[in-house]
């Protein structure tokens, strides 16, 4: 642990601006003492570097599940004041643009689903392609793909792949405004147009979970979010913009490196933090291209939801409507969004970078569905496939981080280290003995996602709750998993 860090509370730690030359604001790390001890050292360096970026407002933040990443740590949050020279940085958003979570309820109980769990997982595995280069069943032209990039989940629902209510229950109603497909490269289109409806690889997954009564933490909120039967079955999945988002990030990192210093005189400590002024032509072009990534990802999750409904309907011989397969919410992880927040008593227009962090708007805030006006926005926190996940909600105290919270458990070791430590075959067998049936495109994919490669999700949620970033509603336990 670094020596200059100050304890603000039991779960808030601060690196003062004196920690490093050039820091414009302090950097805060949210973590219990135990989590802080486990944070890799690079995270402190990275979040301090983020605090040097032009236009950063108030503080740089790292969420309790933070770990080191390209430029920003994963779990990094930074709000840039666009009227004060604020920048936009692809390294603060991540390559898997709008990688995010979607949660769907059913009116089925675990007892009803248990005999069919293998059939469900096997069929989901067939219908939602997983793996690095997986291609989807949606066959569209490159021109049509550009419409997907501009219209997001709305494109999918208009094409009959979803219900109108799904849009209302998606961040940005499933389509962020201002996505212009002219700002994306042909190569990005090439990499994305046949990947709609695919899970991808890495930490992406689709999980059947049980809401056990003993794991209910706030029954009133759980009820408001549609969880109201003991041992109710829900489906959670995590995926993003696939190769498309990755290419958008690559394209603009290269473009920014060319202009950052010569044209805009921005000097940075680490070139992985390449950025451009938000209001520059390059910054605006990336902002639009990134929004295309956001929309592609919303469309991807919408199509996957449609497949899930089809599979459940087929296996149970009842319609998805009859099975009550309503969405709880869809949240984005890797984004930069223009939001208005109060800074020193004044409303400011801020570009909030959330990389591996979830927006967590509190009650009565604009931008959340009407039905959640009094509860706050649902927050979906994906744990490792072995240990379980959480449903939380946004709270008013979230203003301290511009309403941002954790996004998952956070890795404690690299994928390669995990693969050296576990064997996929053994893990699958061991999980089966605990009642969790896993299918994966590769054995090593399973090994990479071993529970032991992650921080304890209970600790992460505890830190979020304690620090006032979000409030836990329900812990969800896995019973079936399609691993990307």
């Amino acid at each position, binding site marked *: 642990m670094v020596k200059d860090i100050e304890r603000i509370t039991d779960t808030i730690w601060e690196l003062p601006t004196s920690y490093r030359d050039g820091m414009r604001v302090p950097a805060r790390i949210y973590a219990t003492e135990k989590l802080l001890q486990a944070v890799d050292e690079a995270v402190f360096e990275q979040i301090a570097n983020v605090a040097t970026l032009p236009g950063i407002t108030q503080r740089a933040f790292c969420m309790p599940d933070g770990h080191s990443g390209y430029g920003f740590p994963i779990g990094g949050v930074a709000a840039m004041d666009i009227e004060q020279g604020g920048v936009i940085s692809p390294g603060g958003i991540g390559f898997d643009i709008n990688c995010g979570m979607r949660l769907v309820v059913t009116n089925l109980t675990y007892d009803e689903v248990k005999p069919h769990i293998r059939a469900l997982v096997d069929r989901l595995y067939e219908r939602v392609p997983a793996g*690095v*280069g997986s291609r989807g069943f949606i066959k569209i032209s490159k021109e049509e793909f550009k419409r997907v990039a501009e219209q997001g989940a709305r494109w999918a629902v208009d094409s009959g792949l979803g219900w109108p209510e799904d849009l209302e229950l998606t961040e940005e109603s499933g389509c962020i405004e201002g996505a212009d497909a002219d700002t994306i490269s042909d190569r990005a289109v090439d990499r994305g147009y046949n990947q709609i409806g695919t899970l991808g690889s890495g930490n992406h997954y689709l999980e059947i979970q049980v809401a056990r009564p003993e794991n209910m933490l706030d029954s009133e909120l759980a009820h408001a979010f549609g969880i109201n039967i003991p041992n109710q079955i829900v489906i959670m999945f995590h995926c993003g913009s696939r190769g498309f988002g990755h290419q958008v990030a690559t394209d603009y*990192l290269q473009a920014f490196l060319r202009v950052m210093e010569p044209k805009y005189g921005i000097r940075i400590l680490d070139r992985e933090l390449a950025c451009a002024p938000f209001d520059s032509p390059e910054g605006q072009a990336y902002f639009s291209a990134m929004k295309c990534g956001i929309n592609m990802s919303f469309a991807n999750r919408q199509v996957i939801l449609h497949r899930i409904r089809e599979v459940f309907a087929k296996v149970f011989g009842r319609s998805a409507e009859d099975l009550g397969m309503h969405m709880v919410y869809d949240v984005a992880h890797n984004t930069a969004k223009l939001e208005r927040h109060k800074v020193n008593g004044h409303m400011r227009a801020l570009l909030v970078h959330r990389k591996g962090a979830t927006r967590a708007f509190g009650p009565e805030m604009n931008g959340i569905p009407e039905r959640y006006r009094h509860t706050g926005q649902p927050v979906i926190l994906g744990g490792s496939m072995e240990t379980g996940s959480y449903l939380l909600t946004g709270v008013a105290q979230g203003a301290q981080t511009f309403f941002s919270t954790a996004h998952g458990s956070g890795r404690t070791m690299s994928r390669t280290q995990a693969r050296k430590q576990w064997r996929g075959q053994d893990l699958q067998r061991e999980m089966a003995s605990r009642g969790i049936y896993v299918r994966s495109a590769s054995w090593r994919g399973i090994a990479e996602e071993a529970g032991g490669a992650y921080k304890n999700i209970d600790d992460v949620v505890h830190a979020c709750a304690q620090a006032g970033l979000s409030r836990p509603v329900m812990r969800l336990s896995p019973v079936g998993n399609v691993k990307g």
Partner: protein
Amino acid sequence: MSHDVRTPLTLITGPLGSGKTTLLRYILATLPTKIAILMNEFGELAIDSRIIQGKNIQLMELGGGCVCCSLLGEFDAAVREIIDTAKPELIVVETTGLAEPDALVFDIEDALPQVRLDGVVTVMDADAMTRYPQLGHTTRMQIEAADVVLLNKTDLISAQALDEAGTQIARINKRAPILPIRQGKVDPALLFGIGHDRMIAPPRHTHQPEFGSFSYVTEQLLDRPCFERLMADLGDSVYRAKGFVRCREASYLFNFVIGRLTLEPFEAKTTELVFIGTELEQHKDTILAALQQCEEGN
């Protein structure tokens, strides 16, 4: 000629804009062998040529039997497809500047028995190192994975800045030699081992004066355990060694790059070895004497 020899694969990694594609062009122009290049996108290498659509790769013919492939599917499936369709003597994989190479190294060693990892070459931009005082997370991982670091664009910086850049890299990776280069020009003999096309050329000294080499030829059989012990205890002065080794039980194709030794059954009439490294003059006689000790009958 033996055909069961594994195909050597070299990973080229390094941050965005460090000169990986320029290096590839230079390798293609100077290395007279059948190379397959696997990259994220054809990019600057693209020339008007026929593109063949495969399952896991798109393949483009470059002439002289060389091909350039862009990755569509899973990495290991793509490599298998390249071996099956193009039958190259050598595969070079150019990773994107954003890639963390340790996972690829693991994939190659774990899932591709038909491939021998010949080396990880990390290209660094010396000029960028002077302009950005810190090395990023991904860049560090790329340096850590290196068997050799090519410090490119050295013509743009002062001698002192070059020293500092070298020190900074060496702090992250102590084992890998650091080669200052310009415009991606490096003697391919330093980068590649030996495959079944039997290219054993020692380095040409043109761009890397600090590197030396010596060879060893004998008609005698070598004792394999003795030879393996010798290679294991070689120390840091030898960066790469390659050639043919004849032992009583079989003869082998031999490749060594900072600590990684491979011996593959291969037909050879004599033992012929080349050692490449820095400050070799001090160690040459000791190594030659030790090799003689491994000759049968000694």
